[in-house]
C-alpha cells in the first residue's frame, strides 16, 4: 500500500474534489469520498497492527485531514470526527473484549463512527450530561436528545456520552459505543447552514439498547482529557489548515496570473498574499508544536490530564480557528471579485463560508472562558522547546 498522505491526495484530488460542489450545494453526505476512503483503507488506518490496522499515528491522520480539506472540507471534517472516535477506542478500548472486537471490525470492514456528545438543554457543554445509562441484567437503555449528531445516518456506530447512572451528577459521565443495529435515530433538527454543509450535523432523539460491556471502562472525564480533547483540536486544526492552504493557493495563483499580464510590476495583492502566507505558516507551526506536545505526553496520563496540556490544546483550537478566518479573508481581498464569485477558478466563497464554522464548533468563547479559569492557577513553566 502507498503511504497515507499519497492515498489521501489521490482520494482528495480524484474523488472528493469532483463532488465537493454538489456536497456543498445539496448539503449531502460525501458518499463518493467515503467509499473511496474505505477502498483506500484510510478509515481504519489508526487501528493497531495487532487488530488488523496500520497503526497510524495521530500525526499521520492529521496529515490526511489536511490533505482532504484542501479538496472538500466537509469530507475533511467528517474524516476528522470519525478518527477522534477511533482514537478513543485505540487508546481506551484495548482492555475490553467487546471493544477489541470493534477495533478489528473497524480495520476489516472500514466502519464509519460518529459521536453524540452534545445534548439539548445542556448548552453545548460536552462535559455535562442530562441523559443516563439505565443498566439492568447486563443490558442498558439510553435515551438522548442529541442536538447534533454529524453524519448520524451514514455512520455504522456512534459513541454516546451519558451520566454513569440515573443517580450520578451531570459531570460523572461514561461513553458508550453503540452500533447501528443497537439504536434508533429520530431526526429533530435539520442542517441548512452557511457552510460545512456536507457534515449533515442534524439533531436526533437517540434511543439505544445494548450490552453493558459496550460502555468504555474509563470515566469519560479521563477519555476526554487524555484523548478526545487533544485529538479533536489537533485534527480540526489540521483540517482547517487544509482550507487555509487551498485559499492561499488560489490567492497565489491569482497574483501570479496578474503578474504575468504586466511583467516587471508587482501586483497590488502580492503584499496581502505575503501577509496571508505569514499567517498560514504561524498556523502550521502551532499545529506541529501541539502534535509534538501530544506525542511527548502520549504515554503519561498525568501529563495528559495536567492543566498545562489542556491550556496548550485549548489555545491551539482558538488560535487556529481565528487565524483560518483571517487567512481566508486576506485571500478574498487578494482575489477581489474573482474570489467573491462562486463560479471563478479563484473563488474562495465556500472557503469563507466553511471557515466561519471554526470559531463556533465548541465555541471559542467557551474555550477561552475555560482557559481563563485554568489560568487562575496554571503556571507557564515551559522552555522554548517544551
Amino acid at each position, binding site marked *: 500500500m502507498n503511504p497515507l498522505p499519497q492515498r489521501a491526495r489521490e482520494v482528495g484530488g480524484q474523488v472528493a474534489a469532483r463532488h465537493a460542489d454538489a456536497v456543498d450545494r445539496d448539503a449531502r453526505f460525501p458518499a463518493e469520498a467515503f467509499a473511496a476512503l474505505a477502498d483506500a483503507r484510510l478509515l481504519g488506518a489508526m487501528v493497531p497492527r495487532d487488530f488488523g490496522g496500520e497503526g497510524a499515528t495521530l500525526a499521520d491522520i492529521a496529515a490526511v485531514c489536511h490533505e482532504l480539506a484542501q479538496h472538500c472540507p466537509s469530507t475533511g471534517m467528517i474524516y476528522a470526527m470519525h478518527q477522534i472516535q477511533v482514537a478513543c477506542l485505540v487508546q481506551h478500548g484495548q482492555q475490553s473484549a467487546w471493544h477489541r472486537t470493534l477495533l478489528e471490525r473497524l480495520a476489516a470492514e472500514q466502519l464509519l463512527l460518529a459521536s453524540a456528545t452534545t445534548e439539548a438543554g445542556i448548552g453545548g457543554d460536552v*462535559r*455535562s450530561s442530562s441523559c443516563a445509562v439505565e443498566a439492568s441484567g447486563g443490558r442498558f437503555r439510553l435515551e438522548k436528545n442529541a442536538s447534533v449528531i454529524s453524519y448520524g445516518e451514514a455512520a455504522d456506530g456512534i459513541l454516546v456520552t451519558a451520566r*454513569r447512572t440515573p443517580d*450520578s*451528577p*451531570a*459531570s*460523572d459521565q461514561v461513553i458508550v459505543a453503540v452500533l447501528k443495529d443497537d439504536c434508533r435515530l429520530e431526526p429533530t433538527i435539520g442542517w441548512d447552514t452557511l457552510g460545512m454543509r456536507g457534515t449533515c450535523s442534524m439533531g436526533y432523539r437517540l434511543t439505544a439498547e445494548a450490552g453493558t460491556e459496550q460502555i468504555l471502562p474509563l*470515566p469519560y*472525564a*479521563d477519555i476526554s*482529557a487524555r484523548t478526545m480533547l487533544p485529538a479533536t483540536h489537533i485534527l480540526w486544526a489540521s483540517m482547517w489548515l487544509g482550507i487555509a492552504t487551498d485559499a492561499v493557493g488560489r490567492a497565489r495563483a491569482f497574483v501570479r496570473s496578474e503578474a504575468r499580464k504586466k511583467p516587471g510590476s508587482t501586483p497590488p495583492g502580492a503584499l496581502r498574499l505575503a501577509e496571508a502566507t505569514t499567517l498560514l505558516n504561524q498556523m502550521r507551526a502551532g499545529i506541529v508544536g501541539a502534535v509534538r506536545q501530544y506525542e511527548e505526553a502520549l504515554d503519561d496520563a*498525568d*501529563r495528559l*490530564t*495536567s*492543566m*498545562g496540556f*489542556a491550556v496548550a490544546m485549548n489555545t491551539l483550537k482558538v488560535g487556529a480557528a481565528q487565524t483560518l478566518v483571517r487567512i481566508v479573508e486576506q485571500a478574498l481581498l487578494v482575489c477581489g471579485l474573482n474570489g467573491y464569485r462562486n463560479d471563478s477558478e479563484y473563488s474562495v466563497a465556500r472557503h469563507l463560508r466553511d471557515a466561519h464554522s471554526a470559531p463556533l464548533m465548541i465555541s471559542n468563547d467557551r474555550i477561552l472562558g*475555560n482557559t481563563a*479559569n*485554568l489560568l*487562575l*492557577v*496554571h*503556571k507557564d*513553566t515551559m522552555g522554548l522547546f517544551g
Partner: protein
Amino acid sequence: MRATAWTALGNEAAEEAVSMDTTIREILADSGWLAVDVATLSVEDDLYAAGLTSHGSVNLMLALEERFDIEFPEQLLRRRTFESIAAIREAVSSLRAGIAGA
C-alpha cells in the same frame, strides 16, 4: 524509648491528618462544588463522581491555597491531585512540609 517516640510521632501525624481532612471537608461543604453532602463521603471517595467539575477543582485549589497559605506547583495541577480528600491532604501536606523544610 524509641518505640514510644515513634508512636507519639505517629499519633501526632494522625491527628494532623484528621484536622486537615476536617478543613478540606469544610472548604468542600462551603463551596457548593459537589452534588452530594460531603459528610457522606469517605476520604477515599472519588470527588469527580460526587460532582466536582474541572471548573470546581480550580476554585477548590484557590481556596486551599488561601486557607493553607501554599501554592500548588505546575506538576501538581492535574486531575489526580484533587480526586479525593485523602489525595488533597497528601498534596497539601507535602507542600507544607516543603515550606517547613525551606
